């Protein structure tokens, strides 16, 4: 009797066990560390990966760009402290410009400069402190940049919570957004990333919970949240998602989008990076990082993370979780 019961129970459990071995809808991914770059890096604050797997890193302490080969070998660098051409004051975000170039945000010089694949200066895409743009836009405080496959550049203005769009020739195309709480407006704009098909994604650091309407009970304490917005190429907000994080300012936020539309979000204060699906559902998380301040996806799907607090850039790959995870 006992043996038969045992056999019956095992037969009942067998299909359940068999099903658990297969991936189920909604399953999350596991992040696996791969490469680490440390050569000549002090405080990396921007990272970009080109079509050949070469990694370019902006170092805000050395005020220079460092370039690494696909195998992690240090190749060369460019830049020095200053305001002349080919000099930087605290370079930050880097974005692949078109298919071969690079756009670099020179934060304290308040300009965006373009480099070619040999790290040769092409020119200034946008001189945000110059007379021409100042007269049109007022003061611009750039906090992030992104560029799309056609060479158009978007600059996040943390002063006015707007996104400035420049064409591939450096001409100002439009302003999008402005201070506000609705989708399509921004409050505490902290990071920006290009999405497939010409769209883009923004991250705002703090969205206040709404007040209770008349007759409603007062809402309880709400965990601090940061908001992601997906905008299309025309600048219309298509969807939003919330990340339960407290981001104090743009130094603690980074964003990257891969070719599939998956979004990687970094919180420098908590040392965490989260991978979200194209519609905002969590897929994976990486913890224990030291002030991650820049993200970039490589062509092979790996995520490169610049850890400013550790003086290194690391890469992670994502794969399905096994039964043992």
């Amino acid at each position, binding site marked *: 009797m006992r043996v038969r019961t045992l056999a019956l129970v095992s037969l009942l459990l067998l299909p359940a066990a068999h099903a658990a071995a297969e991936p189920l*809808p909604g399953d999350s991914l596991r992040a696996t560390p791969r490469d680490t770059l440390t050569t000549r890096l002090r405080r990396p604050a921007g990272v970009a990966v080109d079509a050949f797997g070469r990694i370019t890193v902006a170092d805000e302490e050395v005020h*220079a760009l460092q370039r690494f080969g696909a195998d992690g070998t240090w190749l060369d660098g460019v830049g020095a402290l200053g305001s002349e051409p080919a000099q930087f004051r605290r370079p930050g975000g880097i974005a692949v410009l078109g298919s071969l170039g690079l756009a670099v945000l020179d934060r304290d010089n308040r300009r965006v400069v373009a480099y070619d694949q040999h790290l040769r200066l092409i020119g200034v895409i946008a001189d945000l402190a110059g007379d021409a743009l100042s007269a049109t836009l007022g003061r611009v405080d750039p906090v992030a940049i992104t560029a799309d496959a*056609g060479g158009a550049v978007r600059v996040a203005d943390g002063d006015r919570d707007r996104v400035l769009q420049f064409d*591939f020739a450096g001409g100002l195309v439009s302003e999008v957004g402005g201070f506000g709480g609705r989708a399509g407006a921004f409050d505490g704009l902290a990071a920006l990333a290009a999405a497939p098909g010409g769209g883009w994604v923004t991250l705002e650091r703090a969205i206040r919970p709404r007040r209770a309407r008349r007759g409603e009970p007062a809402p309880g304490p709400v965990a601090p949240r940061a908001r992601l917005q997906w905008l299309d190429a*025309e600048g219309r907000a298509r969807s939003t998602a919330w990340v339960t994080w407290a981001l104090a300012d743009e130094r603690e936020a980074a964003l990257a989008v891969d070719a599939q539309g998956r979004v990687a979000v970094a919180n420098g204060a908590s040392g965490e990076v989260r991978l979200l699906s194209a519609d905002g559902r969590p897929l994976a998380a990486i913890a224990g990082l030291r002030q991650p301040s820049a993200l970039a996806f490589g062509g092979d799907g790996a995520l490169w993370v610049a850890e400013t607090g550790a003086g290194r850039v690391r890469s992670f790959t994502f794969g399905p979780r096994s039964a043992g995870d």
Partner: protein
Amino acid sequence: MRIAPAMRPTLLLVLVLARPGPARADDPSGRTTSILVQRSSQVVYRLGRTFLFAGSDSVWSSSRPWVRGQDYALDPLRGDLRLLRTVTPGETLWVAAAGLVAPPALEYARQRYRPADAPVDSAARPGGAPTPRPVTQREPTVAPAGSQLAVTGNKTIAVEFGSQQDAALRQSLDLSVSGAVAPGLTLNGVLTDRDTPLSAQGASQDLQSIDRVLVELRSERLSAAFGDVPVTLGRGEFARLERRVQGVRAAWRDPGSAFEVAAASAQGEYHRITLRGTEGLQGPYLLTDRDGALGVTVVAGSEQVTLDGERLTRGEAADYAIDYERARLTFSNRRPITAASRITIEYQYAVTRFKRALAAASGELRRGAWTLGVAALREADDRGRPLDLVFDATDRASLELAGDSLALGAGVTPGVGDYDTLRVAPDTLVFAFAGIDSGAFAVRFARVGPGLGDYADSAFVDGRATFRWVGPGRGAYRVGRALPRPEAHDLVALTASAGRGALRLDLEGALSRRDLNTFSSRDDADAVGGAGRLALSLEGRAPGVPGTAGVTLSARQVERRFQSLSRLSAAFAEEDWGLPAGSDLDHTRRGDVAGFWRPDARRELRGDVARLDSPEGYTGWRRRLQWSDTGPLASRLSWVDADGALSDTVTGLGRERVSGEVRWTLARVIPVLRGDWDRLRTPSASGRAEARGEEAAFELQSGASVPWRLGAGVLWRRDATVTAASRTASRAFAWRSAIESPAGGPWGATVLLQRRITRDETAGSRRGTDLATLRLRAEPPRTGLTGSYDAEVTGEAENRRARTLVFVGNGLGSYDAFGNFVGTGGAYDLVLTVSPEFERLTRVASSARAAWRFGSSEAWRGSRVEFVKDDESRRRGALRVADGMLSTGAALDDPDFARASVTQRLEADLAPGSRSHALRARLERRVQADRSFEGFAQTTDVRSGTLRWRARPTPAWSIEGEGRAQWQQAEQAATSAGRFARTITEQGAQLVAAWQPGSALRAAWTVDAGWARPDGATVSTRTLRLGPDVGFSLGARGRSELALRRAFLTGPAAVSLLPSADPAGAPRWEGSVRTDVRMHTTTVIGISASVRERPGRAAVVQGRAEVRAFF
């Protein structure tokens, strides 16, 4: 419930059959669900079922369902699923589809009936069973296994138009291809093609065309690249090549052979310069063409820089920075440059004469102990494709007659030019510079070499080089147009080597043909030359001698007419023989006997004896010994002794040099001692000159167990040059210190300081040079405080410049009396003169930052107070410590600054998360001074303050208010015009109210009021600007943005801080509109226009229409 024993087996069977089956189970309707895991570089997956019902398929991933035709395509007949999205390796896909439960086969073959007893011999029958062939073995409609390519990119076409410009077409194409073309063969390619007006300074200039193609193909043995690629051949000694080209390169390697070919358009001409550093000058060092002319462009990535024999790497944080466009190289503070520095720069400068082609092929076969190699190279100008000029019949005739000598074309064109004739002797008429466009002749000058011309270069005026007559044979230039001669260079080399045991034989022979003028057959008789090399070496363990030892006998002869495509001798190698810099060491006859002994893996002793005969008649012997030990007590010792003679009268040349270093590697400290004693005897005008050098240096560095990198050192050096007629001597003392904290962490410091004092004992002068790099950072945890200070100190040089204002008449010039561009109302023309002389400057750039971040509540999180100070200065003379934290007063008043700028900013962001009282305050001061032009100085001082308040009372409403005040002052002083000064005070306020009920609509209204008053005026210029900003969606596919401002001005007309051609003040009307519409999933059309209107001026309209397609 009790179950009857007889029923239990039945129940058991029912439970087994009724258990929920796996996702792959078939159901009676024929619908199955397949589970796939995506693999990299695979886009086609066979489901294993055929004859599926159209429309019955559905695909989903863990995040969302997939859309047929957008994310995937299904071949229902063959059951092939093809992904239309980029592959996500590791992601799971579920595919459900219904189809025939028992599908028929996809193919049918006609069978012929044979009786059972008939012999079956398909080979004997006519038309027997076809032999499978590779081309018919796979489905032609299915992509070959292992080949998947992903193509992404963007195409943008834009038309710009306006009232002040003609319509201009701009386009860009960016394409990226990646994936596998066959199993094991990967392709990666990018293409970018666009026209852009970008420039380094940010101002629009003529369009640059940026065309970049780069394609790489790789497999285990094959590699190929197309586009901007490096070509490197290093086999043998005579056929070495390293070029940066635009073309194709392919290489094949397997264990027994290696082949490489390249065919390309060479981007530049190869050139090498060697020079001695200038004491304390980090740069810029100018790169020239082979004739010594400036103004070349260096091919990006083509340079190889060595300093004292050590190869350097590019990067300001590494060793040097290079400006390719202006061909200038500057060394970083890591590489202090002294008068004893030996600098070599090999590079390619952009071709300016003819299109140049390069073809190269090399191969190597290894069979047992033998290795055979061959290389063939050709680099030639296309004489039918000159750049930037056109040959006429006279030019061709001159070239045909010139042979390998300089060919000059006509150089004088009557008409408006820069020169007039001047009679300097009764029978001598020469040309003299009369001013830009002020003469009766346009004259061109060709460089013919020192002592061969009648003219010398003078100065740069308004960007043009000017020349003056100096007398027959006293100059380097002649009147005429130097005609470029197309060249061709061919080289073939054979190498062979064989080894048997410890013995090895190396042979190499090469032939070259260099035609310096392919238009002419004259002087071609001496175009062919040969070179040969033989080396016999014996290496191994000698009886009774520990370790390994070896000896090599070698001989090399290079004919004078042999020309390799790269230099054969190392830079400054001539000094080892007592020959002056620039001596020809490539075309020599030489024999060497060299030996080595390695007692163990750490130590090595090398020695050689060599004899050299040079084409200039030098004969000499050289002996060398080198010892190295890489153990914990590392040492390096080198001894060189050479003697030779140039002729019967110039004897006693040579060199004696002893140098060494001892490094003791301990756990916590590494002391290093270095010494150098050098006597170099070279020929000079007075017979022989002896250069003496002695150096001693001591350093202490931190060991590997110390987390911080610390170092300090001192150096003494003495140099003297003695000839029969004179003696010069100098001494130098330098100290350096370095501190570097580990990367990361809350505290950080990098300090690199060097001071070098050089005293000229002959002239009695003293010069100090300083180099410094400081990076200090503090970020105490859990305090919210951060602070940093960065500074760089370097020595630079700039050309002396002068501004000259020429009065041309009221309204006839474009500049005012101080050189400000005022457009059509000016009375002066501005001429900028750049002297070839350099003036030495000490450059200091610094950045200081202190911030406090606080606030943990919802409203106050993100609050901060921050102070930033950015300075940059260039001082004529030695460094002053105060330049590291430059004051605004010093920047404005110190006349020794060629340029100086100071920016100070204090910002506070309070309660940024508050719904009703988010405040931002900013105080800023920017000071700039420019005294880089002789006879002119300009300073500006701008002080501003703003206070902004923000509120978001409801989710739909937001309000911003800002008050501002600004005080700005400018001063100009010109020797010819006196002094100009202006001060303007401004105050103003702005209010913006925005309403956004949803994502489809945003409307804002702006009101801005301002008062501006120049110093001395009693009435302010009052400006009121107001207008709407509206943004709204156009259905589901578009968006439009409108902005409009109307300005009301009262009071006197606005003035700008400095006279300018641009009108001051706000335009009366200003508006812009932009509409973007999505025509297709990945195609967007955008149209924008803006207009500005001022009283009394025509409205300025600008517009742009573009189409952007992503794929």
